[in-house]
């Protein structure tokens, strides 16, 4: 669906369903440089199993207009504005990487609107190397290469994709190559600068799920431990063969973890 928000047209994938009153709502928030379709299998599942689904494209990504937002706080505020516009009083948030920080910040800022949060491929602090940031700032394609290689487990390019016939590296690279200049850098810089993680975690009172890739090079599992400990009600699922791109590298295990948590 498309809707008008401050800053331009916003898009959210709803799994071909109109929002249905009385159903629980799940908001999926993608990571830096990606879009709603990164959640293809998972968002579709929930959309066809009795939930309202809003897999959003953050501003400047996918089908949403506007410049990319510069901070995690702004992203959380944008998601809140979207829910307000749709008159949704409460939702579960599922976020990946930058989207996970957004969900965390959202839960801290808007506890009355947060039913629960699932943080996938997350670490705090989410530091980004200078080389990666600099390359992204220059819109140098080497930034896309770094993203592709570090976002997957080392064995991924030399093994099979659970999605028949698809090449994960190529898919991620194609998505990044469609981005407007500056969008990837904005996302990476927002992750790198986010400094409110522990404070936000302490405020989270709703149930929280961490889904982590055991072979994640971008956000190694140990990087999420402090956040999980700081939350009142958290649980962690670590998926053994996966890197940072859990929805693609381990789609079934990721979906199973979400089903168990959101059911």
């Amino acid at each position, binding site marked *: 669906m498309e809707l008008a928000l401050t800053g331009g047209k916003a898009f959210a994938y709803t799994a071909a369903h109109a929002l249905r009153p009385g159903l629980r709502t799940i908001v999926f928030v993608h990571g830096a440089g990606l879009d709603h379709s990164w959640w293809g299998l998972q968002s579709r599942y929930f959309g066809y199993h009795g939930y309202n689904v809003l897999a959003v494209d953050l501003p400047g990504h996918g089908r949403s207009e506007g410049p990319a937002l510069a901070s995690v706080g702004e992203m959380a505020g944008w998601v809140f504005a979207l829910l307000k516009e749709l008159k949704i009083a409460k939702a579960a948030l599922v976020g990946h990487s930058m989207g996970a920080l957004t969900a965390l910040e959202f839960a801290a800022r808007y506890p009355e609107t947060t039913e629960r949060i699932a943080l996938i491929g997350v670490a705090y602090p989410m530091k980004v190397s200078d080389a990666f940031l600099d390359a992204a700032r220059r819109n140098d394609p080497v930034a896309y290469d770094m993203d592709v290689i570090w976002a997957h487990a080392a064995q991924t390019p030399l093994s099979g*994709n*659970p999605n028949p016939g698809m090449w994960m590296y190529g898919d991620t690279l194609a998505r990044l190559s469609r981005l407007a200049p500056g969008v990837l850098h904005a996302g990476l810089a927002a992750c790198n600068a986010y400094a409110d993680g522990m404070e936000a975690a302490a405020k989270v009172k709703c149930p929280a799920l961490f889904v982590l890739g055991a072979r994640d090079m971008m956000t190694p599992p140990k990087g999420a431990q402090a956040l999980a400990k700081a939350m009142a009600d958290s649980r962690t699922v670590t998926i053994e063969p996966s890197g940072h791109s859990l929805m693609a590298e381990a789609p079934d295990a990721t979906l199973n973890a979400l089903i168990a948590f959101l059911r």
Partner: protein
Amino acid sequence: MSGPKYPGFDTLALHAGQSPDPATGARAVPIYQTTSYVFRDAAHAASLFNMERAGHVYSRISNPTVAVLEERMAALEGGVGAVATASGQAALHLAIATLMDAGSHVVASAALYGGSHNLLGYTLKRFGIETTFVQPRDLEGWKKHVKSNTRLLFGETLGNPGLDVLDIPSVSKIAHDAGLPLLVDATFTTPYLMKPFELGADLLYHSATKFLGGHGIAIGGVLVDSGRFDWERSGKFPQLTAPYAGFHNMDFEEESGTRAFLLRARREGLRDFGACMAPMTAFQILQGIETLHLRMPRHVESTRKVVGFLSANPGVEKILYPEVPGHPDHELAKKLLPRGCGAVFSFDIKGGREAGRKFIESLRVFSHLANVGDAKSLVIHPATTTHYRMSDEDLKKAGIGPGTVRLSIGLEDPEDLMGDLTLGLRAAAKG
């Protein structure tokens, strides 16, 4: 600082798309000679059908062995994914049928394999899809013939049989300026000699029967998508960007972004047209791909020797190989094909059709048959075989004369190949 590195071509040719078999530990790609796959339970079945979970249902749509080939080719080409098909012609048909309806139009190079020319010029016309053929070097022609209903530009990376080098950067720009994708047949070049996506092509396919398989034992095709073409922005492809009643009202682009084209090609094209690849075929082609990086340099090296030999022979009128100075695409080839111009080329023998016949019938190492890209050297007379359906005028447009002979250079000792050609040329010269 040096950035992270992708696995090299040679490594991907051996490993991409496959882990050791989880059931048995088998290192080689197992042949999953099975039609169908047991569902864990009813919910799992429903999830697979509704595309909420990844996996195999029925081997016409996907098969574990075929999927290895598809992923490996996507890796070698730098695409998002691939769909393997029953033949190269099935791959071309699948690409067109996924993007077009009756009333659509294609602008295509005139220098095509005869079967592709036939499909576009005659067969698809019966289904309401028209094609305008242009000379591959005529950039104004490509541009001029794009119409409001044009949906695709199409050519071969190396034209058949004149070895016209498609100027992919220029033709793709014409396509993109018109909001259209460029599809190329990359059979003659393979990903070892050229990466069409890096030059601007959006879609490509191979007759995997040729150099990919490399041993003349299996017919197959593979269609690869770069994932770079923005169907939504183009606005010309409701097949991918509007709800489709034939598939649960799915908007393929909204659903899957970069994977939209392949999603429809697989889920509609393989489902309804059914031109899928058999698992044994995929296994056989994979065996070829695992040595592609070893075979292609040898193919090219031997071809250069044979071309050099023929260039010095008085019985040869003209050689059509882009590495030969004087070929109209000589300079372009240096830019687009720095690793070589492949192992298929044509030459005109003095004495026309009759000399050509005597030449071919005198050869003992070269095999006279309708194929290219085999480990064994091959020869054919296009005017009476692969391109026999084309009119004289179309033959001329495709650069084929009555005495044109096409060679596909194999992996034999090049001295033996040149010796064989010497015998053939002597026989032809006797008149």
